């Protein structure tokens, strides 16, 4: 993954978070993506979210597959371990890492090619397993690294840069996630940091797999007039379902009273997400209505964004696995090996 180191210069008056770290401490290498790439805005939102959440960088693990999107992991939190796996297989590697060490924060970054074509099976099964991780799909409807082929999320009628029209129906990761029982489903737009940052914060705090589909335009191959994943198209067609703000419990902040309906969802770590419906009848805890909302928006050629669904009572992978509280990697060998006497007794059973 291409990367250029940034000079380690800090502004003396830079604000620090509760850990004494500045935003710069949450940055990574210099991006080598095209200037104006939506993915870099996602990077900036991730930096902001992680800084605000005061994540200890070394207690986070950045996971990705292959593709433009998967480069993102190199561009934030340089003090975290990172893993670019193989195309479409980030979910399995993260499942294994999370099984081994439940004590880390797993941030997975993928793309529409990585997750909806070659990796669709792995994405589905990571959702089914409910791996405790943030799963970001940087969705631009196109294969950038191989120069402009349609991806599985390209809309019908969307055209390539050369003018060819896509005829196959798209796979919508949000509908997929809602159907498969994903416990946290959101969609946002790389150009809307106001919305994206609180969603990412809530997603990281969520216990279980939090899928965040981010429309992230490709300036080189899919930011033209015929594209439905361009900046212009997304700005015009975005419909926010739920406006979210995220409040970690340890830091008191006040939310201005607006008179609108505000719902508070408590995350498993005790933090709370405050949800304000832009549509007063929207219920983000109802999977069926969330699904219907996304479909209805699609029918109107609108893009449903915001926190679409959340279930904080779902069981995550470690609940299913019934693992001990201590991460498996921290168990001493003595706690794992039954020893000589047990083997002797066992041998008698094979007589």
């Amino acid at each position, binding site marked *: 993954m291409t990367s250029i180191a940034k000079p380690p210069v800090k502004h003396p008056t830079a604000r620090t978070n509760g850990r004494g770290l500045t935003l710069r401490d949450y940055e990574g290498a210099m991006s080598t993506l095209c200037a104006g790439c939506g993915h870099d805005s996602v990077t900036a939102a991730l930096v902001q979210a992680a800084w605000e959440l005061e994540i200890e960088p070394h207690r986070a693990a950045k996971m990705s597959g292959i593709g433009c999107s998967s480069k993102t992991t190199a561009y934030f939190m340089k003090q975290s371990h990172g893993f*670019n796996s193989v195309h479409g*297989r980030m979910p399995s590697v993260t499942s294994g890492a999370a099984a081994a060490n439940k004590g880390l924060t797993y941030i997975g970054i993928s793309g529409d090619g990585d997750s909806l074509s070659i990796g669709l099976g792995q994405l589905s099964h990571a959702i089914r397993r409910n791996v405790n991780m943030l799963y970001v799909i940087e969705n631009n409807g196109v294969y950038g690294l191989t120069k402009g082929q349609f991806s599985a999320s390209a809309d019908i009628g969307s055209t390539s840069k050369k003018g060819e029209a896509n005829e196959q129906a798209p796979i919508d990761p949000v509908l997929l996630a809602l159907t498969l029982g994903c416990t946290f489903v959101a969609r946002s737009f790389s150009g809307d940091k106001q919305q994206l940052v609180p969603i990412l914060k809530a997603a990281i705090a969520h216990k279980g797999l939090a899928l965040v589909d981010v429309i992230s335009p490709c300036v080189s191959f899919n930011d033209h007039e015929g594209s439905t994943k361009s900046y212009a198209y997304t700005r015009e067609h975005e419909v926010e379902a739920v406006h979210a703000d995220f409040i970690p419990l340890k830091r008191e902040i006040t939310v201005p009273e607006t008179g609108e309906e505000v719902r508070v969802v408590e995350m498993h770590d005790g933090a709370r997400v405050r949800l304000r419906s832009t549509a007063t009848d929207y219920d983000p805890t109802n999977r069926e209505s969330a699904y219907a909302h996304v479909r209805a928006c699609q029918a109107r050629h609108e893009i449903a964004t915001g926190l679409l669904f959340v279930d904080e009572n779902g069981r995550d992978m*470690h609940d299913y696995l019934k693992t001990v509280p201590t991460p498996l990697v921290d168990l001493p060998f003595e706690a794992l090996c039954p020893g000589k006497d047990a083997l002797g007794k066992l041998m008698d059973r094979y007589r």
Partner: protein
Amino acid sequence: MSGKSGINDFAFKMGTVNGTGSASANGLLMQAIFRMGIPVTGKNIFPSNIQGLPTWYEIRVSKDGYTARPSEVDLVVALNPATYAKDVKTVRPGGYLVYDSTWPMDPDLVREGITILGIPFGRMCVETFEKDRDRTLLRNIAYAGALAALLKIDTAVIEAMLTEKFGKKPKLLAANHTAFKLGYDYAMAHFQCPLPFHLEPMDRTGDSILIDGNTAAALGAVYAGATVGAWYPITPATALMEQFKGFCEKYRVDKETGLHKYAILQAEDELAAAGIIIGAGWAGARAFTNTSGPGISLMQEFIGLAYYTDIPAVFIDVQRCGPATGMPTRTQQADLLSLAYASHGDTKHLIVFPADPRECFEMTVQAFDLAERFQTPVFVASDLDIGMNDWMVKRFEWDDSYRPDRGKVLDAADLEKIQRFSRYLDVDGDGIAARTLPGVGGKGAYFVRGSGHDKHGQYTEDSDAYQELVDRLKRKFEGAAEHVPAPIISHQPGAEVGLVTIGGCEAAVHEAADILRAEGIHTDYMRIRGFPFSEEVRKFLGRHEHTFVIEQNRDAQLRSLVQIELGVARDAMTPILDYSGMPLTAATVVNAVKTHLAEVPA
């Protein structure tokens, strides 16, 4: 070998229908013989099917302790009309055939030179038992009873085993007892029992157990401290993870909370299984998967990634006939080359080759040590015969002073002492760079990438940096040669030729060497147990002008590997190949050696 059968030295087999309950009767017979102190082996020759197709179980009794598949049988119990014609041919001249005489004798069963014993198992069971299911299932116990009379199996041993098994279910116990007596009494009343070849109690199994290789390897994973297992069901590897789960439930569940000190993930496919163990290995757990050839094919991309990024992971390959689905319930050693060089690009992998369940146990533990020490994928090349059949092996032993070899892992304190951590820097000159585990903090963080990287772990497409890295990996691989299990070598005075073999061929080749010696052909012997090949392997081959390389695949894969890696000329190695899917017999080896020696003037 013909005509040698006698007391505690013979073989018999049952031809039945898959799914009719014969497996438990056959297991009962084998275990009873074992408990009489007599060395015994059982081979299950079964179809790729749940119910209805022909299946065979072969039991070999050998007072001398030979455990290879018998080359001929003294007695056949023919209970499947669909295979009568085939079964009757497999009885050695002068041998016996037992069949169900409830119906008139099938013309297929007629053969001169063998003794045919009819026992009306079906009629006796119909007359005795009311339920259809009992009539079918207990017919198997009835033939076990008949064999007990004919072969002089200690009935007290059988009774004790039935009580162990059905003690808590008195009705079942009584029914089994009745069925056993039906067969036993009929044989005693109608035939001269015992037959000339039969059993006499011995004292040769006291330090042994009967166990299959999959169970043994699973136990090895438990004892090695593996905490993450990921897999996708595939014959003949499936039972391995099920056994691992069973052992973990026994040994790794917190008594107070009921919580698990292990994680077993049934993946969506073999690709995911490989990804899971690589993720877990990177995170610092001892992780493994169990699969067979088709699974290895699917895992190749990940294997290459783990190799190139120095991540430990253990792959237990229970080989079967390929390619494609091949014959999934038949054994072979046909994955040797695909394991050695798995994945695209320049790759070479560490392999251990167990020959029996005891080695499955020991070598699985070793595989985890090798994987972490050398930070690389390690394969345990088992096969269906070892993995799924019960073998008589010496009891497993464990040294409580064992501690896992975690290799070079830097913790926070280690990182304090160094100026800069570079993930792929070969400080010690052995090709092995120190790693850190996620979560360690400080300067220990690094990025795993399958794309070009330099010794610091940074992305690069620089030619020199790439070559430096892959050369380091080669150095690391070569250094492993003295750490993989050493070959087993034995010499006979005046040996003319060398026998070289691998894995489960051991039993047959050892027996063949004894037979050849009795006929005046002396051989030296080497069983290769690890890849890369050690210096001892090279020396053995250098000492012999001519060797026979015995393996179970069509293309002489072991010979190719020896030729490629050690430069031994092909002409100096005569392949003896059995790729029938059946476990190797000593006769196959003896005949091939003798034929070749007769053709080539000394």
